[in-house]
């Protein structure tokens, strides 16, 4: 059972022929070569496969591609090429947020999702915002402070 699914991926319209029950994660990685989306747990628990669906964070391992019909998906590779995403990535790099890096694309999505809804989060709000993204390396402290760094560096840009 193959269907045409249309959606916007990283700013571009795509149409793919695929089983609509395929996981968004698999379609992104296998059919559309978005290897920046990582598979960590396969059950929506770790956040490594996070992407933005209509600008809200979702775990792509839980979404059948059929549900994405006519919606918009953004992955970390695209997000980090935008003005806001660049600020987050640079802050992550300078702030020591990145260790093994496997959780980081998802973590960037979580940070972006948070900052687009809250332009000046407190430490507590940051911790809450990334609480669905599990990192085994950092203990989170330097990720949290890197997001604060992104807030300070970005200034008014987060209000846009």
């Amino acid at each position: 059972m193959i269907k045409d699914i249309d959606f916007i991926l990283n700013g571009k319209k795509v149409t793919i022929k695929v089983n609509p029950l395929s996981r968004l994660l698999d379609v992104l990685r296998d059919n559309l070569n978005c290897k920046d989306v990582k598979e960590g747990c396969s059950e929506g628990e770790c956040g490594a496969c996070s992407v933005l669906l209509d600008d809200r964070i979702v775990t792509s391992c839980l979404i059948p591609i059929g549900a994405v019909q006519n919606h918009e998906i953004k992955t970390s590779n695209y997000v980090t090429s935008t003005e806001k995403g660049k600020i987050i990535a640079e802050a992550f790099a300078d702030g020591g947020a990145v260790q093994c890096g496997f959780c980081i694309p998802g973590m960037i999505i979580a940070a972006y999702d948070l900052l687009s809804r809250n332009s000046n989060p407190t430490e507590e709000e940051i911790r809450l915002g990334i609480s669905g993204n599990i990192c085994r390396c950092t203990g989170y402290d330097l990720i949290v402070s890197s997001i604060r760094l992104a807030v300070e560096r970005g200034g008014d840009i987060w209000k846009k």
Partner: protein
Amino acid sequence: MEKIDCYIPETLQEALEILHREDVIILAGGSDLMVFHKNEPSLIPEFEKSVMIIRNLNELKGIRINSNGECEIGALCTSNEIAESTIVPWHLRQAASRMGAVGLRNSATIGGNIANASPKGDMPGPLYLLDARVKLTSLNGSREMLVSDFIIKFKSIDLKKDELITKIIIPYSERDFDYIFWHKVGTRKSNAISKITVGMALKFAEDEIVKDFRLSATSTGAKTNRNRDVENLLIGSKITEENISRVIEAFDQVISPRAMPVFRRESTKRMIRRFLSQCLLHPESRVIDTYDSYYVPGSPKPVFNI
């Protein structure tokens, strides 16, 4: 293997027609079903029959207060939408705000959480507590029933083949009570499955008499527990040490936790005792928690102004 099909209706009418003629698995947010049916990476999830994806049915979204003053929540509202809405009763917002991971809360729906009928589910507790009803719709019309009746037992619901959960209607909110309590003990501070969750609400009448008292507990048996006989032990009486003990002992008979029984029974007892003995003191804060400095960051604030 028989042919597995996948339907993606664009309207409620279309969805109901599909349900009328086909035997399908209804997939809302996918947060439970996609895990349950997961396959090896890169392989299509394995469903035993055809699937209908309803995630994007706009008619089943939105939250409003109806003409009776009840909160009506579309079955496809996500946990985050519920947690962020100030018109949703506080107990339910609490439950929604601490359900799973942030990303999952943008997928998981209230309808799906009820239909999943897991004794560890986050939504049923508050819905039992507040006498919430589900609205079930088919081509032949609609019916409503209490969520607590709709969930029959572990993983079993009273849904006919051609019916869809379309709405959840909640007649009570924190405004109807003087004191409220909701506490989830998760496996960790966030992104957690419930080890035990207890919800309570109490209203006084004149002269310290309890006018209304409600108590629900999840992860304490095959389904969410609420028992009106236990609540009636207190309603119409004053809160006394003796009454508190009677409620505690009676509720202990109601619950039947299999794993971690000592912990689940003892913490349930302690939470009930804590709530009722605090109510007795008429503290200024109408939200009562397990101890004074307890605070869950990011938890929703109640709305009491009427």
